[in-house]
C-alpha cells in the first residue's frame, strides 16, 4: 500500500511486523499512509496482529483501508467485522476482483456497502484498475466520520453482558479516551490477554473481574 514501493510479500515470523510509511497528496490534500502487517484476525496472541490492532487503538487513524482478496470474501470479511467492532472508520477495498469474476462470483457491492455501513471500492491493483477511484474514496472517507450502528449484534444474553460490562468500564475515567468500550467489553468476554491486563490495572478491576474471571 505504500506509494511507489515494491515490496516482497511473505508470511513468516519476522516479516512485516513493523509498519511502513509513505505519503502522497490527492487533490491538494496531503495524506499519510501507514502499511500495517497483513492479518486475518486481530488477536492479542499474535505479534503481527497486535501491532496492527495497537496502532489502530493508539493512533486513532482517520481511516483504515481494509484491502481484501475479493475471491475469498467469506474468510476476509471476518477482519472487516473485527475492524468495525474496533469502532474505527473503515473503507473496504475489494482487490483482485478479476480473480473473483473468474471464479464466477458476482458481488453486489452496493448491497454489501449498505449492509456493512461503509464505503467499498473494487480494484485490480496489479492492473491499476480502480486506483483513481480508491484515491478519491480515501480522501472522502477520511474526511467524513460516519457514526455506525453496531457492526455485529450478538444474542440477547451476550448483549446484556456487554452492556453490563460497558456500564462498569464507563466508571473508570481513563478508559473511554483510550479504548472503544464496547470493543473492550467484547474482548473481556473473549478473555483476550490484553483486555484482561487493562482490566487488572483499571480502577474498576474488582467489579470487572467478578464478571470475567
Amino acid at each position, binding site marked *: 500500500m505504500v506509494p511507489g514501493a515494491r515490496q516482497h510479500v511473505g508470511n513468516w515470523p519476522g516479516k512485516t511486523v513493523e509498519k511502513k510509511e509513505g505519503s502522497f497528496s490527492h487533490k491538494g490534500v496531503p495524506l499519510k499512509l501507514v502499511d500495517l502487517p497483513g492479518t486475518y484476525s486481530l488477536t492479542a496472541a499474535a505479534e503481527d496482529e497486535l501491532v496492527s490492532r495497537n496502532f489502530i487503538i493508539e493512533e486513532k487513524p482517520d481511516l483504515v483501508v481494509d484491502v481484501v482478496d475479493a475471491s*475469498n470474501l467469506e474468510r476476509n470479511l471476518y477482519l472487516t467485522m473485527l475492524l468495525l467492532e474496533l469502532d474505527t472508520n473503515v473503507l473496504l477495498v475489494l482487490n483482485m476482483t478479476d480473480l473473483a469474476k473468474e471464479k464466477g462470483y458476482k458481488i453486489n457491492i452496493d448491497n454489501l456497502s449498505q449492509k456493512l455501513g461503509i464505503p467499498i471500492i473494487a480494484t485490480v491493483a496489479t492492473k491499476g484498475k480502480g486506483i483513481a477511484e480508491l484515491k478519491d474514496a480515501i480522501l472522502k472517507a477520511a474526511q467524513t466520520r460516519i457514526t455506525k450502528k453496531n457492526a455485529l449484534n450478538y444474542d440477547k444474553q451476550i448483549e446484556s453482558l456487554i452492556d453490563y460490562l460497558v456500564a462498569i468500564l464507563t466508571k473508570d475515567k481513563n478508559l473511554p479516551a483510550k479504548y472503544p468500550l464496547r470493543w473492550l467489553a467484547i474482548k473481556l468476554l473473549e478473555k483476550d490477554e490484553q483486555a484482561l491486563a487493562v482490566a487488572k490495572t483499571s480502577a474498576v478491576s474488582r467489579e470487572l473481574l467478578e464478571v470475567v474471571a
Partner: protein
Amino acid sequence: MRLSELKPGQEATVTKIENTTTARRRIMDMGLVKGSKVKVICRAPLGDPLEIEIRDYKLSLRKKDAQNILVTEAE
C-alpha cells in the same frame, strides 16, 4: 472421529474444537468453527502437516492441532 484421521478426499463437519485457548482461537479465526464443512486435500508424509479445504480456501494444519478437532464424516 478426529480431523487428523480423515483420508484425502474425505469430507466432514466440525463438531468440537478441543485445542487449548490460543490454538483454539487461532483455528476459529481461520474460519474453522463448529458446523464448518471441511475436506482433506492431502497429507504430507507422516501426516504432518495436513492440508484441508474450508470455506473455499486451503488451510494447512499441524497434526497436533488437527488431532484436537472432532468431526463427523459426511455421508
